[in-house]
Each structure stands twice: as C-alpha cells, then as structure tokens.
C-alpha cells in the first residue's frame, strides 16, 4: 500500500545524462509499466526507485517519505530481476528466507512467511531444490516468491519475462496480473514488450532517451498518442506514416491531400495549421481497408503478403511513401503485384506536425478511459479481479 512520487529526478553517469528530469505520480495499488526502446532509461529509472543507483538530482518519495539516501533494503520495496538473480548455492527455501534472516526475523516467522509464499506460487514441493534444478518458469516464481516474503509496499519488476519462451511468457504474464489483484500492492514493471505493457498496466509510462514522452492508460496511448514516437511504439503491427499536404482547415478538422490526389478530412484541432503545410498522416494497419471502404482511398501496389491464418498482412507501397502495412482478415485474396485502392476513415487517423507532435483529436475516444478491469479509470473502489 504505497504511493511513489518522482519530482524532477535526474541521473547522470559522469557527463552523460541518462534520466533527464522525470516527474511521475504512482498511486496506491497501481500497476505501472515503464516501456520504451532499449537505452531509453527505463531500467535506470527503476533502479533509481530501488536505490541501486544514486539519484543525481530531484526527489523520490515513497508514501510521502523522502527516500533519496535510504538504502534499498529500507525502502519497503522488493525487486524481481530479469535474470531472476537466484542465489545458486542456496535452496529455494534459503533463497526466499535470505532477506528475512538478514533482517533477523524469528525462525518461526520466517518459516510461516516462506511457506505462505510458496503456497501462493505453488512452490511447496520445490522448497529443498537448488535453482539449477528448476525450470525457467519455476525460477521465475521463486524470484517472485522471494519478493513476496518481504511484504513490500512496492514491487519492482525488471523485464522479468524476457528470459522465458513465448508460451511460458503468456502464462507468467497472467500469473503476475493475478498476483497484483491478490496482493493489493503497488507494482512497477519495466519491459520493452508493448504487449506486456498493454495487457498488464493500469498506467503506461513511455520513455524515450531519458524523458517521459507520455503517461496514460493503455487505450489512451493507443487512441490518443501525443506524438509520433508513442503512436509508432504502441500497437502492432506498427502504425503507417504517410506524408501529406494540407488542403484546407476549418472547425471540423484538417483536410489533407493523400498521395494519389484524394483528400481526407481528419477531425483534429486545426489551429496553427495553414493550407500547403506538410504533415504526417498516421493510420494503423487495422484501420486500413483493402477493399477501399472509408472516407478516402489511396492507390497502392501490393509487394508482399503474409498470411497468418486468422489475419493477413499486406505490405503495400505507393510513390514517396515508406512500405505500409494493411491488416485484413484471413480470407483476403490479395497477392503480390495487385494494384488496389486502400481506404481509411478520417476519425481513426492521426496527424503529426514537423515537430512530431500530434494535433489533438477533437473528440476523445471514451475507450481511452477504460482501465484494464473494464472500469473507467479514476472510478473509486478496489478493482475486482478479472481472472
């Protein structure tokens, strides 16, 4: 049960600034995911919160108490590492008990806590094993168990699933989500995998080069990306970007000319945009129509087709445009060499200016306010478990 607050936190290694001033409020019981490409500083930010790195400037508080100079063990946190960091020479039991022993807990108390955690994670039959005798998923569970016994206010996860194979990753993802709803604890989770971010988070923090570029619920980031980076990072396959020219502007939005000559009205705030300006149109593959339905079409030629069974991805190109992706269903007959007119709806498109910032959409998509438990974000009361 804890809040975490970062105020203008900076971190420099020598002269290189890795974290360039981060402000962040993490609420009690919230599941926050730090996401971004490698090198964006997300792990460093987590390690600052953990106390494994010293904060160069700014302030970190946990539950309102300044924590900048507090050693990790006294911050009320627990951390699950990417490599699990299990002590190889200790049994599962000893691994989980290590921190409690150092804190000089009573033997009986330690035993109770370890067994309780083992029960929650179904590790009871493995307690006397050494880490090397465990499978990847079991090691991961021990690592989580080790953090549970500490009864922390805040759980920190550093890319905990990246060493697992795809099937196990999905399973552990579900277990972590379940754990969150069972434990009522604040969790901060670092990943570069946007699927993990979308599925686990109450709140996603997108980082780029040491700066927080956007904070919001998963669907808010999906529907209202504030800039081209977030738009491209969230969503799979990646959003298509098409260079366009502004044809006209008015109160209902900006009308742009697509490659091929057709015009499309995108309902965004048109202030500060003049006709003739060059913008970037963003449209997600799932919002493009192979059959040309929508408000406007664009002539393209199909280059490669990928059939996944349920879905079909068509890679298409047009003059002056990077390769674009069109997502259609598995029954599509598209084939390389086909010339087609792809259609799109203005309401599902985004426009980005020279500075890569998005022009604000005129209407807010109400899906953006749905939390992961299906309740509108900000609604009071504990969220019931979905699983």
């Amino acid at each position, binding site marked *: 049960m804890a809040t975490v607050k970062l105020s203008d936190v900076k971190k420099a290694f020598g002269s290189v600034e890795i974290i360039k001033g981060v402000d962040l409020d993490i609420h009690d019981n919230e599941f926050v995911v730090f996401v971004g490409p490698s090198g964006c500083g997300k792990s460093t930010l987590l390690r600052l919160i953990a106390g494994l790195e010293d904060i160069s400037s700014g302030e970190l508080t946990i539950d309102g108490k300044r924590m900048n*100079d*507090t*050693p990790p063990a*006294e911050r009320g946190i627990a951390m699950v590492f990417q490599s699990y960091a299990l002590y190889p020479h200790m049994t599962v039991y000893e691994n989980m008990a290590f921190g409690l022993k150092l804190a000089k807990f009573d033997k009986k108390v330690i035993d109770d806590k370890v067994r309780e955690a083992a029960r929650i994670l179904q590790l009871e039959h493995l307690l006397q094993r050494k880490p090397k005798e465990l499978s990847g998923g079991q090691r991961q569970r021990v690592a989580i168990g080790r953090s549970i016994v500490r009864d922390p206010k805040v759980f920190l996860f550093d890319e905990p699933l990246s060493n697992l194979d795809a099937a196990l990753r999905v399973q552990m993802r579900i277990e972590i989500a379940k754990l969150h709803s069972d434990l009522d604890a604040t969790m901060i989770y670092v990943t570069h995998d946007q699927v993990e971010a979308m599925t686990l988070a109450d709140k996603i923090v997108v980082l780029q080069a040491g700066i927080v570029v956007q904070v919001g619920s998963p669907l808010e980031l999906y529907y209202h990306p504030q800039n081209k980076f977030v738009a491209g990072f969230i969503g799979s396959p990646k959003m298509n970007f098409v260079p366009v020219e502004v044809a006209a502007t008015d109160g209902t939005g900006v009308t742009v000319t697509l490659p091929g000559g057709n015009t499309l009205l995108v309902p965004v705030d048109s202030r500060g945009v003049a006709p003739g300006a060059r913008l970037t149109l963003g449209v997600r593959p799932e919002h493009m129509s192979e059959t040309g339905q929508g408000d406007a079409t664009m002539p393209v030629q199909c280059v490669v087709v990928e059939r996944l069974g349920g879905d079909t991805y068509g890679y298409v190109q047009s003059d002056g445009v990077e390769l674009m992706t069109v997502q259609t269903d598995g029954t599509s007959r598209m084939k390389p060499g086909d010339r087609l007119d792809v259609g799109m709806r203005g309401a599902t498109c985004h426009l980005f200016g020279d500075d890569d910032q998005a022009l604000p959409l005129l209407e807010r998509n109400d899906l953006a306010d749905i939390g992961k438990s299906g309740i509108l974000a900000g609604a009071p009361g504990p969220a019931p478990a979905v699983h």
Partner: protein
Amino acid sequence: MASQLIGAVIAIVLGIGFSLFYFAGTNWALDHWLGDRTDAAGEKISKAHRRESIRPWLFIAPALLILGVYLVYPVVETLRLSFFDDTGQGFVGLANYIWAFQDGEFLLAIRNNLLWLIIVPSASTGLGLLIATLADRVPWGTVAKSLIFMPMAISFVGASVIWKFVYDYRGPDAEQIGILNAIVVSLGGDPVHWISLPFWNNFFLMVILIWIQTPFAMVIFSAALRGVPMDTIEAARIDGARPVQIFFKVVLPQIMSTVVVVWTTITIIVLKIFDIVLAMTNGQWNTEVLANLMYDWMFRGGGDFGRGSTIAIVIMVAVIPIMIWNIRRFQKEEGMR
C-alpha cells in the same frame, strides 16, 4: 619435529585467524559506531552514506598496505640504493651504472639474458602451440597434454636435478648414466661434458626452462583454440584451404592476442630466471644471468647493496615496457566492459 608441527599449526591458525578477525571486527565496528540512530524526535538518522564510503577502504586496506611495503616501496628504494655504495650509506651517483657497463661479468650476463629472451619464449610458445594443435586432433590428446603438463608442477631446482641427471657425464671409458651421453656414445660419439661446453651450455640450461614453460603455453593455447569458432574453420575447408593454410591463415590470426600474452608472460619469467642457473652452474662456465649476478652481489663479500640494486634496476627497466603495455591493455578492456 613434533613441536615444529604444532608450532606450524598454531602459526597457521593465528595468521588466518588474525586476518579473519580484522575483516569481521572492523566491519562490525563500522556498523556499530556508524549505525543508524533514532534522534529525540523519533526520526531515524541514516548514516548509511558515511558508512558505505568508509567500508571499501576497510576491504582494501590490508592489500594496499602489503603491496605498498612489499612491492611499491622496494621499487623506489632499490632505485635510490642503486645510486649508493655497498653499505647503502654513501652517495656515489652513477658510479654503479658505470661499473656495471664496464664489468665483463655484467656484460656477459646481459648477453646471456638476451639469448634467453630470444630463445626461451619463442621455443616455448612455438612448441606449446604445436602440442596444443596436435593434441586437439587425436583421441588420446587429453592424456598427452596431461603428461606433458607435469613439469609445471616441478620446481626449478627439482627440474635442474632432473636435467643434471640427463646431462650427466662420465669419462670416455666409463658406462654413461646420463641418457644424453648414452645416446651419443651409442651412436659412436664421445661423451661430452655438456654444462661446461662453451657457449652451447647456455642452451642446455635454457632447455630446462623451455621444458617447464612449454606446458604453460600449451594449456593456454589449448583453451584459446577451443575458443576459435568451428564455423570459421569449416568455412575455410569449404573454401578449399588445406590444414596448414587453415592453421596459419584462419586459426592463428584469431588467437594472436593469446600468443602475445603467452609470449610476454614467459618473457617476464625469463627475465627473472635465477634458480636454474644457480643450481646448475652458479654462473660458472660463462652462464651468468642478471638475476643470479644480482643475488651474488647481494651476499658477495658481505653484500654490495648498491651494485645489487643497480642490477635489479636493469631487470626492472626491461620489464617496464611490458608493464605499460599490460596496463594499457587492461584499460582498453575496461573501456569495453
């Protein structure tokens, strides 16, 4: 003897106990004196920062102290002493150096050391590489390496006894019990007194060091060869390279840095070579080397510290380039970490 055994055991326990006591004690004291306190207002005062800035020094202090006394101070002091007379009292300027470079024995030692420096590292490296390569491709390679490795465990003095026995000489009429002369005689030759044979006797002493150092080179190269990706060798085979070409054009370039490390390591050992010469000839018959000469001057006629130090400095000067290269290499590696 029994009392000495007990004494040794007590000494061992005390020595180790004291070391343990130091580390455990100072760390306990640090945690105790700079522990977190609670002030009058009930607020916790954390001294973690000060505590953790002192602790590293507790960890490294004994090492720094001993390195300082046993290696750093002596380097400086030896340099100083090399400008002083035999007692270390009177300043003589460069006289010791001038003496050295006019002294026949010293110049002879320099010549011999150069011979050692050229021959031993190259022979050991070459043979080590040869054995590692050969052993890698035969089924009994591990056994072969294990047997060849054995001299590494033997002291220079022990090795000297072994080889003195090999070089043993009896008069022409007697039965030869040294295997080398036995072979010479069986081939119809006359037995030779190998270790006094002018000039060549140096090589017979070098053989001993090569015999000891080749296994070292072999082990290192064996590990390095295992690190060469099989893919590159197979690619070369597909490209039509013959085994010898594969070795020189594909394998060797990939382990070149290891070759350099082995070469320099053996070079340093050669510079310090002492035991073999002392045990085999004590510098007689023109086999003097710097380290033995230095030892000699340390105790000759009550000891001449000035001249001894001068010779030590000459050895040190020879090592300095390797030392600088070593530090550079280390710093480069650190940069890549």
